[in-house]
Protein backbone atom coordinates (compact mmCIF):
# COMPACT_ATOMS: atom_id res chain seq x y z
CA UNK A 1 0.00 0.00 0.00
CA UNK A 2 1.53 3.30 -0.99
CA UNK A 3 1.77 6.37 1.14
CA UNK A 4 -0.83 8.04 -1.05
CA UNK A 5 -3.54 5.70 0.16
CA UNK A 6 -3.67 7.10 3.62
CA UNK A 7 -2.76 10.67 3.00
CA UNK A 8 -5.36 12.56 4.93
CA UNK A 9 -8.07 14.41 3.08
CA UNK A 10 -7.46 18.00 4.08
CA UNK A 11 -10.80 19.05 5.31
CA UNK A 12 -10.54 22.70 6.21
CA UNK A 13 -14.31 23.12 6.43
CA UNK A 14 -14.46 20.59 9.19
CA UNK A 15 -11.63 22.33 10.95
CA UNK A 16 -13.34 25.68 10.75
CA UNK A 17 -16.67 24.26 11.82
CA UNK A 18 -14.93 22.65 14.71
CA UNK A 19 -13.32 25.92 15.69
CA UNK A 20 -16.70 27.62 15.72
CA UNK A 21 -18.09 24.85 17.85
CA UNK A 22 -15.24 25.22 20.25
CA UNK A 23 -14.35 21.63 19.53
CA UNK A 24 -11.03 22.34 17.84
CA UNK A 25 -9.16 19.85 19.93
CA UNK A 26 -11.62 17.08 19.26
CA UNK A 27 -12.14 17.31 15.53
CA UNK A 28 -8.79 17.71 13.93
CA UNK A 29 -7.69 19.38 10.74
CA UNK A 30 -8.30 16.27 8.73
CA UNK A 31 -11.88 15.69 9.75
CA UNK A 32 -11.20 12.62 11.80
CA UNK A 33 -12.85 12.45 15.14
CA UNK A 34 -9.83 11.63 17.18
CA UNK A 35 -7.08 9.04 16.83
CA UNK A 36 -9.41 6.06 17.20
CA UNK A 37 -11.51 7.26 14.29
CA UNK A 38 -8.38 7.68 12.19
CA UNK A 39 -7.07 4.26 13.22
CA UNK A 40 -10.35 2.64 12.23
CA UNK A 41 -10.28 4.24 8.84
CA UNK A 42 -6.65 3.17 8.35
CA UNK A 43 -7.44 -0.35 9.52
CA UNK A 44 -10.26 -0.65 7.01
CA UNK A 45 -7.72 -0.10 4.25
CA UNK A 46 -6.12 -3.40 5.16
CA UNK A 47 -9.28 -5.04 3.87
CA UNK A 48 -9.17 -7.86 6.40
CA UNK A 49 -11.19 -8.73 9.45
CA UNK A 50 -10.52 -5.98 11.93
CA UNK A 51 -9.45 -8.58 14.46
CA UNK A 52 -6.84 -9.85 12.02
CA UNK A 53 -5.31 -6.53 11.06
CA UNK A 54 -1.60 -6.09 11.23
CA UNK A 55 -0.98 -3.78 14.13
CA UNK A 56 2.58 -3.04 13.04
CA UNK A 57 1.30 -1.96 9.65
CA UNK A 58 -1.39 0.09 11.33
CA UNK A 59 1.19 1.72 13.57
CA UNK A 60 3.30 2.59 10.55
CA UNK A 61 0.33 4.13 8.79
CA UNK A 62 -0.63 6.17 11.82
CA UNK A 63 2.91 7.38 12.38
CA UNK A 64 3.22 8.32 8.71
CA UNK A 65 -0.01 10.25 9.00
CA UNK A 66 1.19 12.13 12.03
CA UNK A 67 4.52 12.87 10.35
CA UNK A 68 2.80 14.14 7.25
CA UNK A 69 0.50 16.36 9.26
CA UNK A 70 3.44 17.82 11.14
CA UNK A 71 5.38 18.32 7.96
CA UNK A 72 2.47 20.36 6.66
CA UNK A 73 2.45 22.23 9.96
CA UNK A 74 -1.06 21.24 10.95
CA UNK A 75 -1.45 21.47 14.62
CA UNK A 76 -2.27 18.05 15.97
CA UNK A 77 -4.29 17.52 19.06
CA UNK A 78 -2.36 16.10 21.95
CA UNK A 79 -4.17 12.79 21.86
CA UNK A 80 -2.84 12.09 18.36
CA UNK A 81 0.67 12.51 19.68
CA UNK A 82 -0.05 10.35 22.72
CA UNK A 83 -1.46 7.68 20.43
CA UNK A 84 1.53 7.97 18.08
CA UNK A 85 3.97 7.53 20.92
CA UNK A 86 2.05 4.59 22.26
CA UNK A 87 1.82 2.91 18.85
CA UNK A 88 5.55 3.39 18.29
CA UNK A 89 6.15 1.77 21.62
CA UNK A 90 3.74 -1.08 20.88
CA UNK A 91 5.30 -1.67 17.49
CA UNK A 92 8.79 -1.88 18.95
CA UNK A 93 7.56 -4.37 21.53
CA UNK A 94 5.82 -6.48 18.91
CA UNK A 95 9.03 -6.70 16.88
CA UNK A 96 11.17 -7.82 19.81
CA UNK A 97 11.63 -11.50 20.35
CA UNK A 98 9.25 -12.67 23.04
CA UNK A 99 11.81 -13.74 25.56
CA UNK A 100 13.47 -10.31 25.50
CA UNK A 101 10.40 -8.81 27.12
CA UNK A 102 9.89 -8.21 30.76
CA UNK A 103 6.31 -9.26 30.36
CA UNK A 104 5.41 -9.09 34.02
CA UNK A 105 6.09 -5.40 34.20
CA UNK A 106 4.87 -4.07 30.91
CA UNK A 107 2.17 -6.45 29.81
CA UNK A 108 2.01 -8.71 26.83
CA UNK A 109 2.28 -6.75 23.57
CA UNK A 110 0.03 -9.31 21.87
CA UNK A 111 -2.66 -8.53 24.41
CA UNK A 112 -2.27 -4.84 23.83
CA UNK A 113 -2.52 -5.36 20.07
CA UNK A 114 -5.63 -7.48 20.44
CA UNK A 115 -7.07 -4.87 22.74
CA UNK A 116 -6.59 -2.18 20.14
CA UNK A 117 -8.15 -4.40 17.48
CA UNK A 118 -11.16 -5.01 19.74
CA UNK A 119 -11.60 -1.31 20.33
CA UNK A 120 -11.65 -0.80 16.57
CA UNK A 121 -14.15 -3.62 16.13
CA UNK A 122 -16.38 -2.04 18.71
CA UNK A 123 -16.24 1.41 17.14
CA UNK A 124 -16.88 -0.20 13.78
CA UNK A 125 -19.91 -2.00 15.22
CA UNK A 126 -21.27 1.31 16.46
CA UNK A 127 -20.83 2.78 12.99
CA UNK A 128 -22.68 -0.15 11.48
CA UNK A 129 -25.39 0.27 14.12
CA UNK A 130 -25.80 3.87 13.01
CA UNK A 131 -26.14 2.81 9.39
CA UNK A 132 -28.66 0.12 10.31
CA UNK A 133 -30.71 2.61 12.30
CA UNK A 134 -30.64 5.13 9.49
CA UNK A 135 -31.81 2.46 7.07
CA UNK A 136 -34.92 1.71 9.10
CA UNK A 137 -38.23 3.23 8.11
CA UNK A 138 -38.55 6.20 10.40
CA UNK A 139 -41.69 7.74 11.76
CA UNK A 140 -42.98 10.65 9.70
CA UNK A 141 -40.25 10.07 7.16
CA UNK A 142 -41.19 6.71 5.67
CA UNK A 143 -44.07 5.61 7.84
CA UNK A 144 -46.87 7.78 9.09
CA UNK A 145 -49.24 7.41 11.98
CA UNK A 146 -52.93 8.16 11.84
CA UNK A 147 -53.15 11.77 10.74
CA UNK A 148 -56.43 12.50 12.39
CA UNK A 149 -56.79 10.43 15.51
CA UNK A 150 -60.24 10.43 17.02
CA UNK A 151 -61.05 11.80 20.37
CA UNK A 152 -60.48 8.91 22.74
CA UNK A 153 -57.75 7.51 24.17
CA UNK A 154 -57.71 6.08 27.58
CA UNK A 155 -59.48 8.98 29.07
CA UNK A 156 -59.20 7.80 32.57
CA UNK A 157 -60.80 10.51 34.57
CA UNK A 158 -59.88 10.45 38.14
CA UNK A 159 -62.35 11.76 40.57
CA UNK A 160 -61.01 13.13 43.79
CA UNK A 161 -63.56 12.97 46.49
CA UNK A 162 -62.12 15.36 48.99
CA UNK A 163 -64.47 17.49 50.97
CA UNK A 164 -64.24 20.80 52.69
CA UNK A 165 -63.82 19.17 56.06
CA UNK A 166 -60.72 17.37 54.85
CA UNK A 167 -59.42 20.65 53.50
CA UNK A 168 -60.05 22.51 56.74
CA UNK A 169 -58.55 19.64 58.66
CA UNK A 170 -55.44 19.65 56.52
CA UNK A 171 -55.05 23.36 57.05
CA UNK A 172 -55.72 23.37 60.77
CA UNK A 173 -53.27 20.57 61.40
CA UNK A 174 -50.54 22.43 59.66
CA UNK A 175 -51.26 25.65 61.45
CA UNK A 176 -51.04 23.82 64.75
CA UNK A 177 -47.84 22.17 63.68
CA UNK A 178 -46.40 25.45 62.47
CA UNK A 179 -47.35 27.12 65.74
CA UNK A 180 -45.65 24.43 67.77
CA UNK A 181 -42.61 24.65 65.57
CA UNK A 182 -42.53 28.41 65.59
CA UNK A 183 -42.33 28.69 69.42
CA UNK A 184 -39.94 31.45 70.22
CA UNK A 185 -39.47 32.57 73.84
CA UNK A 186 -40.94 36.01 74.01
CA UNK A 187 -38.00 38.14 74.87
CA UNK A 188 -35.63 37.61 77.78
CA UNK A 189 -36.84 36.13 80.98
CA UNK A 190 -36.10 38.63 83.66
CA UNK A 191 -34.17 37.12 86.50
CA UNK A 192 -33.88 38.31 90.10
CA UNK A 193 -30.20 39.32 90.28
CA UNK A 194 -28.00 37.49 92.77
CA UNK A 195 -26.49 40.78 93.94
CA UNK A 196 -29.89 42.11 94.78
CA UNK A 197 -30.79 38.88 96.61
CA UNK A 198 -27.57 39.03 98.64
CA UNK A 199 -28.06 42.69 99.48
CA UNK A 200 -31.58 42.04 100.57
CA UNK A 201 -30.61 39.03 102.72
CA UNK A 202 -27.92 41.04 104.48
CA UNK A 203 -30.52 43.66 105.25
CA UNK A 204 -32.81 40.99 106.64
CA UNK A 205 -30.11 39.34 108.82
CA UNK A 206 -31.19 41.05 112.06
CA UNK A 207 -34.71 39.66 111.56
CA UNK A 208 -33.52 36.10 110.95
CA UNK A 209 -32.69 35.04 114.46
CA UNK A 210 -35.27 32.29 114.28
CA UNK A 211 -35.46 29.58 111.58
CA UNK A 212 -37.47 31.14 108.76
CA UNK A 213 -38.74 29.35 105.63
CA UNK A 214 -37.19 30.40 102.33
CA UNK A 215 -40.65 30.88 100.88
CA UNK A 216 -41.26 33.67 103.37
CA UNK A 217 -37.84 35.27 103.02
CA UNK A 218 -37.84 35.46 99.23
CA UNK A 219 -39.56 38.53 97.83
CA UNK A 220 -42.95 38.24 96.20
CA UNK A 221 -43.28 39.95 92.85
CA UNK A 222 -46.06 42.48 92.81
CA UNK A 223 -49.05 41.32 90.82
CA UNK A 224 -49.53 42.91 87.43
CA UNK A 225 -46.06 44.38 87.33
CA UNK A 226 -43.39 43.10 84.94
CA UNK A 227 -40.43 41.75 86.82
CA UNK A 228 -38.68 38.61 87.89
CA UNK A 229 -40.92 35.65 88.46
CA UNK A 230 -41.52 34.17 91.87
CA UNK A 231 -39.46 31.13 90.87
CA UNK A 232 -36.52 33.34 90.02
CA UNK A 233 -36.85 35.18 93.36
CA UNK A 234 -36.81 31.88 95.21
CA UNK A 235 -33.84 30.57 93.27
CA UNK A 236 -31.73 33.70 93.65
CA UNK A 237 -32.54 34.03 97.32
CA UNK A 238 -31.55 30.42 97.91
CA UNK A 239 -28.29 30.92 96.04
CA UNK A 240 -27.46 34.07 97.93
CA UNK A 241 -28.39 32.33 101.17
CA UNK A 242 -26.05 29.41 100.46
CA UNK A 243 -23.20 31.81 99.70
CA UNK A 244 -23.79 33.49 103.03
CA UNK A 245 -23.85 30.10 104.73
CA UNK A 246 -20.42 29.54 103.29
CA UNK A 247 -19.29 32.92 104.59
CA UNK A 248 -20.58 31.96 108.01
CA UNK A 249 -23.30 34.59 108.20
CA UNK A 250 -26.23 32.17 107.89
CA UNK A 251 -27.20 28.62 108.77
CA UNK A 252 -29.48 26.51 106.59
CA UNK A 253 -31.41 23.32 107.11
CA UNK A 254 -33.82 21.16 105.25
CA UNK A 255 -35.81 18.43 106.96
CA UNK A 256 -36.32 16.22 103.93
CA UNK A 257 -35.59 16.10 100.19
CA UNK A 258 -37.70 18.65 98.36
CA UNK A 259 -38.86 19.97 101.71
CA UNK A 260 -38.86 23.60 102.75
CA UNK A 261 -35.48 25.22 103.28
CA UNK A 262 -35.05 27.19 106.53
CA UNK A 263 -32.50 29.91 107.07
CA UNK A 264 -31.28 31.51 110.29
CA UNK A 265 -28.60 34.08 111.11
CA UNK A 266 -25.59 32.72 112.96
CA UNK A 267 -25.41 34.04 116.49
CA UNK A 268 -22.36 36.26 116.48
CA UNK A 269 -24.12 38.46 114.04
CA UNK A 270 -22.23 41.55 114.85
CA UNK A 271 -18.87 39.80 114.32
CA UNK A 272 -19.60 39.02 110.70
CA UNK A 273 -20.67 42.54 109.93
Amino acid sequence: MSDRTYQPPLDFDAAEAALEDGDALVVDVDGFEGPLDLLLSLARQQKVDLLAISITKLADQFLAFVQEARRKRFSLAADYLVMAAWLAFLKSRLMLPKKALVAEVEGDPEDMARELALRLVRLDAVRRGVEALKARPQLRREVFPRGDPQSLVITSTTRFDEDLYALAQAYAQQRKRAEARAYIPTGRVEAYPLEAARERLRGLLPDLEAWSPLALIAPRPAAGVDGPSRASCLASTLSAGLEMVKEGALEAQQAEILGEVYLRARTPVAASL
Partner: protein
Amino acid sequence: MTEAETDAAVETIVPANPVETERQVEALLFAAAEPLSAADLAQRLPHGADVGRALAALRGRYAGRGVELVCVAERWRFSTAPDLGYLMTAEREESRKLSKAAMETLAIIAYHQPTTRAEIEQIRGVGLSKGTLDLLLQIGWVKLRGRRRSPGRPVTYGVTDAFLEHFGLASLADLPGASEMKALGLLDASFTGDFQLPDPNRQDADEDPLSEVGLDAPEFHQDFLE
Protein backbone atom coordinates in the same frame (compact mmCIF):
# COMPACT_ATOMS: atom_id res chain seq x y z
CA MET B 1 -37.96 16.97 -10.07
CA THR B 2 -39.39 15.36 -6.98
CA GLU B 3 -39.65 11.66 -6.41
CA ALA B 4 -43.40 11.74 -6.86
CA GLU B 5 -43.05 13.47 -10.18
CA THR B 6 -40.54 10.91 -11.31
CA ASP B 7 -43.01 8.24 -10.42
CA ALA B 8 -45.75 10.07 -12.24
CA ALA B 9 -43.57 10.17 -15.34
CA VAL B 10 -43.10 6.44 -15.12
CA GLU B 11 -46.77 5.84 -14.47
CA THR B 12 -47.86 7.61 -17.64
CA ILE B 13 -46.23 4.80 -19.52
CA VAL B 14 -47.13 1.88 -17.24
CA PRO B 15 -50.84 2.12 -16.39
CA ALA B 16 -51.53 2.31 -12.68
CA ASN B 17 -52.06 -1.00 -10.99
CA PRO B 18 -55.49 -0.96 -9.27
CA VAL B 19 -54.24 -2.93 -6.27
CA GLU B 20 -51.39 -0.47 -5.79
CA THR B 21 -53.69 2.50 -6.19
CA GLU B 22 -55.92 1.06 -3.50
CA ARG B 23 -52.94 0.75 -1.15
CA GLN B 24 -51.90 4.31 -1.90
CA VAL B 25 -55.35 5.72 -1.29
CA GLU B 26 -55.59 3.73 1.91
CA ALA B 27 -52.28 5.13 3.16
CA LEU B 28 -53.06 8.70 2.15
CA LEU B 29 -56.46 8.69 3.85
CA PHE B 30 -55.00 7.12 6.94
CA ALA B 31 -52.20 9.63 7.31
CA ALA B 32 -54.16 12.73 6.29
CA ALA B 33 -55.01 15.20 9.00
CA GLU B 34 -58.40 15.88 7.43
CA PRO B 35 -60.81 14.25 5.01
CA LEU B 36 -59.61 14.22 1.39
CA SER B 37 -61.67 14.61 -1.75
CA ALA B 38 -61.19 12.37 -4.75
CA ALA B 39 -59.47 15.31 -6.44
CA ASP B 40 -57.10 15.76 -3.49
CA LEU B 41 -56.22 12.10 -3.76
CA ALA B 42 -55.76 12.16 -7.53
CA GLN B 43 -53.39 15.08 -7.17
CA ARG B 44 -51.19 13.17 -4.80
CA LEU B 45 -51.27 9.91 -6.72
CA PRO B 46 -49.30 8.93 -9.79
CA HIS B 47 -50.97 10.09 -12.97
CA GLY B 48 -53.64 7.80 -14.35
CA ALA B 49 -54.65 6.25 -11.05
CA ASP B 50 -58.34 5.37 -10.89
CA VAL B 51 -59.21 6.98 -7.61
CA GLY B 52 -62.94 6.32 -7.82
CA ARG B 53 -62.39 2.63 -8.27
CA ALA B 54 -59.89 2.48 -5.45
CA LEU B 55 -62.29 4.27 -3.11
CA ALA B 56 -65.10 1.90 -4.00
CA ALA B 57 -62.88 -1.12 -3.48
CA LEU B 58 -61.68 0.20 -0.14
CA ARG B 59 -65.19 0.97 0.99
CA GLY B 60 -66.12 -2.63 0.24
CA ARG B 61 -63.04 -3.98 1.96
CA TYR B 62 -63.70 -2.09 5.16
CA ALA B 63 -67.46 -2.68 5.24
CA GLY B 64 -68.41 -4.32 8.49
CA ARG B 65 -64.95 -3.92 9.96
CA GLY B 66 -64.04 -1.94 13.05
CA VAL B 67 -63.08 0.94 10.81
CA GLU B 68 -65.10 2.19 7.89
CA LEU B 69 -64.46 4.41 4.93
CA VAL B 70 -67.02 7.16 4.94
CA CYS B 71 -67.76 10.03 2.64
CA VAL B 72 -68.82 13.28 4.21
CA ALA B 73 -69.43 16.36 2.06
CA GLU B 74 -67.64 14.65 -0.81
CA ARG B 75 -64.58 14.09 1.24
CA TRP B 76 -63.35 10.73 2.37
CA ARG B 77 -62.03 9.61 5.66
CA PHE B 78 -61.68 6.56 7.81
CA SER B 79 -63.67 6.50 10.97
CA THR B 80 -64.44 3.90 13.54
CA ALA B 81 -67.63 1.93 13.07
CA PRO B 82 -70.58 3.73 14.66
CA ASP B 83 -71.60 0.71 16.70
CA LEU B 84 -68.22 0.77 18.44
CA GLY B 85 -68.59 4.36 19.53
CA TYR B 86 -69.03 3.24 23.12
CA LEU B 87 -65.42 2.07 23.12
CA MET B 88 -64.23 5.55 22.31
CA THR B 89 -66.28 7.43 24.82
CA ALA B 90 -66.22 5.16 27.81
CA GLU B 91 -64.52 6.88 30.63
CA ARG B 92 -62.87 5.18 33.43
CA GLU B 93 -63.66 7.02 36.57
CA GLU B 94 -61.52 6.28 39.50
CA SER B 95 -62.13 7.70 42.84
CA ARG B 96 -58.93 8.63 44.53
CA LYS B 97 -57.74 10.29 47.64
CA LEU B 98 -55.20 13.02 47.52
CA SER B 99 -52.05 12.34 49.46
CA LYS B 100 -51.65 14.10 52.77
CA ALA B 101 -48.93 16.29 51.28
CA ALA B 102 -51.13 17.24 48.34
CA MET B 103 -54.09 18.01 50.57
CA GLU B 104 -52.02 20.17 52.86
CA THR B 105 -50.45 21.99 49.96
CA LEU B 106 -53.85 22.60 48.47
CA ALA B 107 -55.10 23.97 51.77
CA ILE B 108 -52.19 26.35 52.08
CA ILE B 109 -52.66 27.62 48.56
CA ALA B 110 -56.35 28.12 49.25
CA TYR B 111 -55.84 30.03 52.49
CA HIS B 112 -52.72 31.95 51.58
CA GLN B 113 -53.04 32.68 47.93
CA PRO B 114 -51.27 34.12 46.12
CA THR B 115 -48.47 32.09 47.60
CA THR B 116 -45.16 30.77 46.47
CA ARG B 117 -43.55 27.40 46.70
CA ALA B 118 -41.13 28.68 49.32
CA GLU B 119 -44.02 29.92 51.47
CA ILE B 120 -45.77 26.59 51.22
CA GLU B 121 -42.62 24.84 52.31
CA GLN B 122 -42.16 27.28 55.13
CA ILE B 123 -45.65 26.70 56.48
CA ARG B 124 -45.47 22.93 56.07
CA GLY B 125 -41.97 22.83 57.48
CA VAL B 126 -40.92 20.28 54.88
CA GLY B 127 -39.82 20.44 51.29
CA LEU B 128 -42.42 20.08 48.58
CA SER B 129 -41.87 17.37 46.03
CA LYS B 130 -42.37 18.46 42.46
CA GLY B 131 -45.03 15.90 41.86
CA THR B 132 -47.33 17.39 44.47
CA LEU B 133 -47.80 20.77 42.84
CA ASP B 134 -47.87 19.17 39.42
CA LEU B 135 -50.69 16.91 40.50
CA LEU B 136 -52.73 19.83 41.83
CA LEU B 137 -52.11 21.76 38.62
CA GLN B 138 -53.09 18.73 36.62
CA ILE B 139 -56.30 18.16 38.51
CA GLY B 140 -57.03 21.77 37.76
CA TRP B 141 -57.54 22.91 41.33
CA VAL B 142 -54.45 25.07 41.39
CA LYS B 143 -53.19 27.52 38.83
CA LEU B 144 -50.22 29.71 38.28
CA ARG B 145 -51.16 33.28 39.07
CA GLY B 146 -48.05 35.25 38.30
CA ARG B 147 -44.76 36.09 39.81
CA ARG B 148 -43.94 37.73 43.10
CA ARG B 149 -42.00 40.93 42.77
CA SER B 150 -39.22 39.75 45.01
CA PRO B 151 -35.74 38.40 44.45
CA GLY B 152 -35.88 35.38 42.20
CA ARG B 153 -39.36 36.40 41.04
CA PRO B 154 -40.94 33.19 42.32
CA VAL B 155 -44.11 31.93 40.69
CA THR B 156 -47.28 32.48 42.72
CA TYR B 157 -50.09 29.97 42.98
CA GLY B 158 -53.79 30.27 43.61
CA VAL B 159 -56.82 28.04 43.44
CA THR B 160 -59.13 27.82 40.47
CA ASP B 161 -62.85 28.08 39.93
CA ALA B 162 -62.86 24.31 39.56
CA PHE B 163 -61.55 24.15 43.11
CA LEU B 164 -64.37 26.33 44.41
CA GLU B 165 -66.88 24.30 42.48
CA HIS B 166 -65.58 21.01 43.78
CA PHE B 167 -65.66 22.13 47.38
CA GLY B 168 -69.00 23.84 46.98
CA LEU B 169 -67.74 27.31 47.78
CA ALA B 170 -69.28 30.43 46.37
CA SER B 171 -66.06 32.28 46.94
CA LEU B 172 -62.81 32.03 48.81
CA ALA B 173 -64.37 34.02 51.62
CA ASP B 174 -66.53 30.99 52.32
CA LEU B 175 -63.59 28.87 53.39
CA PRO B 176 -63.99 27.80 56.99
CA GLY B 177 -62.39 30.37 59.27
CA ALA B 178 -60.65 30.03 62.61
CA SER B 179 -63.88 30.06 64.60
CA GLU B 180 -65.46 27.34 62.47
CA MET B 181 -62.34 25.25 62.83
CA LYS B 182 -62.43 25.71 66.59
CA ALA B 183 -66.07 24.72 66.57
CA LEU B 184 -65.20 21.61 64.59
CA GLY B 185 -62.54 20.80 67.14
CA LEU B 186 -59.84 21.17 64.52
CA LEU B 187 -58.14 23.96 66.38
CA ASP B 188 -57.70 24.39 70.11
CA ALA B 189 -59.72 27.18 71.63
CA SER B 190 -56.41 28.71 72.66
CA PHE B 191 -55.18 28.97 69.07
CA THR B 192 -54.18 32.56 68.53
CA GLY B 193 -52.10 32.48 65.37
CA ASP B 194 -53.00 35.04 62.81
CA PHE B 195 -55.67 33.54 60.67
CA GLN B 196 -56.84 35.55 57.77
CA LEU B 197 -59.14 34.36 55.08
CA PRO B 198 -57.95 35.27 51.64
CA ASP B 199 -59.68 38.13 49.99
CA PRO B 200 -60.84 36.76 46.66
CA ASN B 201 -60.43 40.14 45.06
CA ARG B 202 -57.00 40.72 46.39
CA GLN B 203 -54.47 41.38 43.73
CA ASP B 204 -51.19 41.67 45.48
CA ALA B 205 -49.28 44.80 44.75
CA ASP B 206 -46.15 42.75 44.73
CA GLU B 207 -47.45 40.26 42.23
CA ASP B 208 -47.05 40.47 38.48
CA PRO B 209 -49.96 38.88 36.69
CA LEU B 210 -49.19 35.83 34.66
CA SER B 211 -49.90 37.29 31.28
CA GLU B 212 -47.11 39.80 31.49
CA VAL B 213 -44.47 37.32 32.31
CA GLY B 214 -42.88 34.81 30.03
CA LEU B 215 -43.22 31.67 32.06
CA ASP B 216 -40.83 29.87 29.85
CA ALA B 217 -40.19 26.40 31.01
CA PRO B 218 -36.51 26.06 31.64
CA GLU B 219 -34.92 23.34 29.62
CA PHE B 220 -35.55 20.33 31.75
CA HIS B 221 -32.25 18.62 31.17
CA GLN B 222 -30.31 21.46 32.68
CA ASP B 223 -31.51 20.37 36.03
CA PHE B 224 -30.03 16.97 35.75
CA LEU B 225 -26.90 17.18 33.79
CA GLU B 226 -24.73 19.22 36.02
